[in-house]
Structures are given as structure tokens and as C-alpha cells.
């Protein structure tokens, strides 16, 4: 750079004038710089998002779990599902099947059905080297299902169905057709199958398939002692069905319940200068000056909490609870909006006094500013039953709520207390809240419990970081409404 004394007065004049100008950048610029310099600081918010996602997944799974867990459990004792995709045989997870379509006289130990009602054909089924299969249910592609129940050994050798050039060797086979579905039931049966599987009625000896070639080859065989044994096994299993389907006792599910709730409330704050002993602000007047003049005037505003907690009864009258809660906090300050931003200063403990611009005077006027935060918290606590029997009960409870502040609008006082300055970075990210509540719960006939009652929530740490020369604690009073469902 050229080291020059200004070449003429005009240049000096320009230089002097230009250097006099100061412009206060918006805070957004600093946030962008900060985020760029400290990308790792985004992890807390990402962790919270992950936590929320996990909780939502858990709630979803817990609610879908009740459909047929008992039936599945019983079935799983007797059935294993095998999925056959063309020439591949693999075993998958439990699969619920039913043998109700088969009458006792026409006991099925191997049935093959095409779900869309069409006979099983070459294209549907091709089994190679499938040794069948004790207590096994087969699912073939999407359409074809083979069910085998309660038979010890069905086919000992290789079985090939629907292979044009292979012989299907099936012992004790019976072909039936029920309700539009093609069912192949094995009794005693031998066939050389070139074109596919057909259905045949053993009683009438009639083959029920459109495939004439196959009809000629599928011949019913007399009942054997083996089939009678099958009938007995099937019968005993059916008689035992209720026992087999009895759900296992699950202590956790008996004692646990899931509660969803929402709490509209009115939010306030208490406020003090650091060094002062007492918080002020139980009324609208939040702070007074030295001559008792009113400095700050606040007003309540609508807050909202919503969440879900898992409740677990440890005794008849005490239950523990833990969950996830979203909070929106809000209160109003009466201010005077300035025509144009004014330069002022902010006193911060570790940085001294810094220059800021402000658009609001603290002098109470017709304008209002909302001081809001969005938070997520993890309420952990307990409820105690105070009174009540059967369907109507009265509870009292308390929670401790570690809280993460996701976002917010913070208006802090300038050093001379004449202005409000928008200074979001001073918001404390991690906070701790506590809630106490009492409520009546009414259990309806469909095992859903409604609960309603007042709640008080108080913030234990200041809204702002310790750098700020003031301490503010928010609190709100509201009505909690919730529903509780058991698992």
C-alpha cells in the first residue's frame, strides 16, 4: 500500500468523511460467522432432533404392537414361515397363518393356495429340493401360500411341484378346493406333474382344475392310518388352541401406560438485577428505578406445552413417569417503538460494554414485544394417588424437566436500562424446569383415561447466560389436559 500523505485536500476530505462513518451490522451476520466458525456447536440441536425421532418411533411401535401379538406368539410355537422365491428357499420371521378354512374331515397338512383365487401353476410355484417340513408355513412369492400343520414328516424326499420335467413325489396327498382358493392337501398321493398343480376332491374323485392333462394324472388314494393320525393331531391342536393362544404375562405392559397431554397456560417472568436479593415481578410492574419510577412493565401471554410420557406404576398409588415435551414460552413487554434505530450499549460480564442498536425504548407505550422461546424437555417425575377408586381418581405429581432451548427471541436491557436490545446469543441453551400439578382422572369404558387439572411450571435457571447482568426466571400457570392409554 502506498504510504502517502494525502495528495490534496479533496482526498483528505473524502478519507476523513468516510472513516467517520460507523454502521452497526445486524446480528444475523454474526450468527452466520459463528455457525461457520463453530459447526460442531450444531451437535446439541442434532442430538435433540435424534432424540425426538427416537421417541416418535418408539411411540409408533408401541401403539402398533397390540394388534395380534398374542396370536403371533401362539402361532410361532407351531409354525415357521419359509419364503420361497423361485428356486431359493429361505426362512424368514414368524408369519401368522390360519387353518380355519379347512374342515376337520378334510384335514390339511399341506395346502397350497393362490391368494387371488387362481390355481397354482408353473409360474407360481417351483420347489426344488425342498424337504418338507415340520410345522412349516410356506409363502411363495407374493401370491402363493403353502401351509403345513402339525405333521411330523411330510415329504422325505425331494419334492418338485410344477416342474414340467420332474416328477412330484408326494405321499398322503389330497387335493381340495375351498372358497375359490386352490388348496392342495396331502394325504396319499403320487403324481407325475408336467404342467402344474391342480385341485381334486377326494370324496368325489373329481379333479377340479382346468388342466386336463394334470387331471388325468392326479388320482385320489384311499385314506390310510397315517391320515387318521393326522386328523387326531389336528383335532387335539385345535382343542388346545385357546391354551396355545393365551398371551404370556407381561409385567411391564400391565403396569405401563402412555399419556399424551397438552397444557395451554399463561406465561410470566420474575426478574432481578444481579446482586439484588429479591426477584420482583409478581405483578405487571417488573422493575422500578431508584426513585420508585416504573421502569419495565410486562404482561402475560399464551404459552403451550405438549408431550407424551410413559407412566409406570410401582405401587397402587405411585407411578413414575418419563417422556418428551415441547414447550412454547412467551410473555409481553410494553415498550415504545423508536422511529429509527438508536445506538446504545450492552453490558456483558466477560466482554465489558459492547455497542448495539435498538428499536425499542423500555418506556411503556402502546407497543409490545414478545419474548418467546421454543424448547424441548425431558420430564422425569412421579404421580401420587391422593384419593379415588375405580374410574375416578385424584392425583398429584411433580416433574423435573431438563430443557434444551431450540430458538427464541431475546430482548435484553441496555446498560442504561433505557432500551431493549435483540440479543439472542445471550439465551441460555440448557436450562432446568420443574412442574407441579394435580389432576382428576376418569377412566372410560374403552380403557382410555382422561385427565384434567391445573399445572404450575417454573424455570430454575435464568433465561439468559451468566454473562448478562440480570437474572430472569419464567413461570407459567395453566390447565393440563391429557389422555392415557394402556399397552
Amino acid at each position, binding site marked *: *500500500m*502506498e504510504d502517502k500523505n494525502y495528495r490534496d485536500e*479533496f*482526498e483528505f476530505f473524502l478519507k476523513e468523511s*468516510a472513516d467517520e462513518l460507523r*454502521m452497526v451490522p445486524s446480528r444475523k*451476520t454474526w450468527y452466520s460467522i459463528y455457525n461457520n466458525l463453530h459447526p460442531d456447536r450444531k451437535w446439541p440441536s442434532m442430538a435433540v432432533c435424534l432424540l425426538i425421532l427416537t421417541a416418535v418411533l418408539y411411540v409408533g411401535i408401541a401403539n402398533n404392537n397390540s394388534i395380534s401379538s398374542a396370536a403371533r406368539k401362539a402361532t410361532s410355537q407351531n409354525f415357521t414361515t419359509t419364503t420361497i422365491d423361485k428356486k431359493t428357499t429361505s426362512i424368514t420371521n414368524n408369519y401368522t397363518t390360519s387353518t380355519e378354512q379347512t374342515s376337520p374331515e378334510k384335514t390339511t397338512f399341506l395346502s397350497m393356495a393362490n391368494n387371488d383365487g387362481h390355481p397354482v401353476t408353473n409360474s407360481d410355484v417351483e420347489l426344488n429340493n425342498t424337504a418338507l417340513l415340520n410345522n412349516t408355513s410356506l409363502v411363495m412369492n407374493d401370491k402363493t401360500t403353502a401351509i403345513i400343520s402339525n405333521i411330523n414328516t411330510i415329504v422325505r424326499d425331494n419334492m418338485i411341484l410344477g416342474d414340467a420335467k420332474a416328477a412330484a413325489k408326494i405321499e398322503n396327498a389330497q387335493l381340495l378346493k375351498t372358497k375359490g382358493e386352490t388348496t392342495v392337501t396331502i394325504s396319499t398321493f403320487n403324481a407325475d406333474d408336467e404342467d402344474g398343480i391342480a385341485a381334486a376332491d377326494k370324496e368325489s374323485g373329481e379333479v377340479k382344475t382346468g388342466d386336463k392333462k394334470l387331471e388325468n394324472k392326479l388320482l385320489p388314494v384311499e385314506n390310510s392310518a397315517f391320515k387318521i393320525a393326522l386328523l387326531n393331531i389336528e383335532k387335539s391342536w385345535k382343542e388346545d388352541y385357546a391354551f396355545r393362544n393365551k398371551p404370556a404375562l407381561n409385567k411391564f405392559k400391565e403396569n405401563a401406560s402412555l399419556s399424551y397431554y397438552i397444557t395451554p397456560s399463561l406465561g410470566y417472568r420474575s426478574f432481578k438485577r444481579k446482586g439484588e436479593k429479591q426477584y420482583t415481578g409478581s405483578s405487571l410492574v417488573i422493575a422500578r428505578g431508584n426513585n420508585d419510577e416504573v421502569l419495565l412493565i410486562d404482561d402475560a401471554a399464551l404459552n403451550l406445552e405438549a408431550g407424551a410420557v410413559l407412566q409406570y406404576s410401582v405401587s397402587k398409588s405411585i407411578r413414575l413417569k418419563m417422556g418428551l415435551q415441547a414447550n412454547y414460552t412467551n410473555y409481553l413487554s410494553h415498550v415504545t417503538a423508536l422511529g429509527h434505530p438508536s445506538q446504545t450499549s450492552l453490558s456483558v460480564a466477560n466482554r465489558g460494554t459492547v455497542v448495539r442498536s435498538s428499536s425499542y425504548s423500555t418506556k411503556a407505550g402502546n407497543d409490545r414485544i414478545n419474548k418467546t422461546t421454543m424448547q424441548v424437555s425431558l420430564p422425569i417425575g412421579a404421580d401420587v394417588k391422593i384419593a379415588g377408586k375405580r374410574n375416578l381418581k385424584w392425583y398429584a405429581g411433580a416433574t423435573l424437566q431438563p430443557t434444551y432451548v431450540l430458538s427464541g427471541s431475546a430482548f435484553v436491557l441496555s446498560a442504561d436500562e433505557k432500551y431493549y436490545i435483540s440479543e439472542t446469543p445471550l439465551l441460555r441453551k440448557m436450562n432446568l424446569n420443574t412442574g407441579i400439578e394435580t389432576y382428576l382422572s376418569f377412566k372410560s369404558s374403552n380403557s382410555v383415561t382422561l385427565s384434567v387439572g391445573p399445572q404450575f411450571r417454573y424455570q430454575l435457571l435464568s433465561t439468559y447466560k451468566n454473562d448478562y447482568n440480570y437474572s430472569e426466571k419464567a413461570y407459567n400457570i395453566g390447565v393440563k389436559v391429557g389422555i392415557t392409554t394402556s399397552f
Partner: protein
Amino acid sequence: MTEEQMLAGTLKNNAAAQEALYDRYSPRMLSVCYRFAKSREDAEDMLQEGFIKIFTQLHQYRNEGALEGWIRRIIVHTCINVLKKNKKFSETVDLIHAHAFHTNEELIPSIMQAKQVVECIRMLPLGYKTVLNLYAIEGYSHKEIGNMLDIEESTSRSQYTRAKVMLEDILVRKNIIDKSQYKNNYAKTNAKI
């Protein structure tokens, strides 16, 4: 927080120290960016980019000369780089057409003289404005300006001469300076305003 503390903290990637440094120098640096930029938003973008460079390259500062001067050089170079991405600096405007730029003079706010002067500078065509800023206010030589803007040194000189004439004309029209007197004493003229 003293400058040494800020420097030490910033070198340790301490967020509070970085913010303190930013708070101290950003108002002046934004006014530098504002003189080069088309709008305040563009100026803030330049400022943001410049401060990220400052924080990431602060270890290169060797305490030779004032920190503000070092910061200012980075900011100016950032502004030039941003402008170079968007516009050719060979842009020239004939003085014949200079009056066309006067049509917006009513937009100049009458808040204070410094602001008025800066707004007048910002009214100049981009090439004029950039060269004038670099030469008259930032103190770069025409050779340095030529290297920075990828133009001939002579082009920088001619741009500056034209810019200066145009700016004087604007300032006189706005009664910010008195043409009959400015060659002798601007301060005296300013006192009248």
C-alpha cells in the same frame, strides 16, 4: 477485554473473544464494505466473508502494525474479490453521461455529512467507485490497484480522474462542498453545512 486478550482468545477459537473482536471492528469494517457494495445486504455478506477469513487467518498476523489495519486490508481484498466475481472492472462511464447518475440524488439521506459523502461515492459507476475507494480512501497506489483489479495502471489513473471529477460535481450539487472553496479548505466548507 483488551486487544491482547481478544487476540489470544480468538487464536484459541474462543467464541466470546471472537465476538468481542467482531463487536469492536465490525462497525468500521461494515462502512468500508458499504462503500464498495451495491446495497447494505451485499455489504453485510462481504463483511461476513471477510470476518471468516480474519478469524481463520489470524495466526498470520504478526503484531506488525495495527490490528485494525490488517483487518481492513483483508476486508478490502474480500470486497474486491466479491466484486470481481460479479462485474468487470474495466467499466468506464463517459463524463458526458455522468449527469444520468445525478437523478437519484434525492435519495441521499441528510443525516450527517459522513453518510452523505459516502452515499455520494456509492452513486458513482462501479469502476469509478472502486478505484476512488481504493486510491483516495484506502490509500492504495495505482499500480497496486491495477494488480488488484486486473487492469492497467493507466486505466486506474484515468478512472480515478474521472471519478474524482464526477464526485466533486455531485458534492457541489448537493451543497456538501463549495466548489469555489474546496481547493483551499474543505473543513471551512463543511462548517457551513
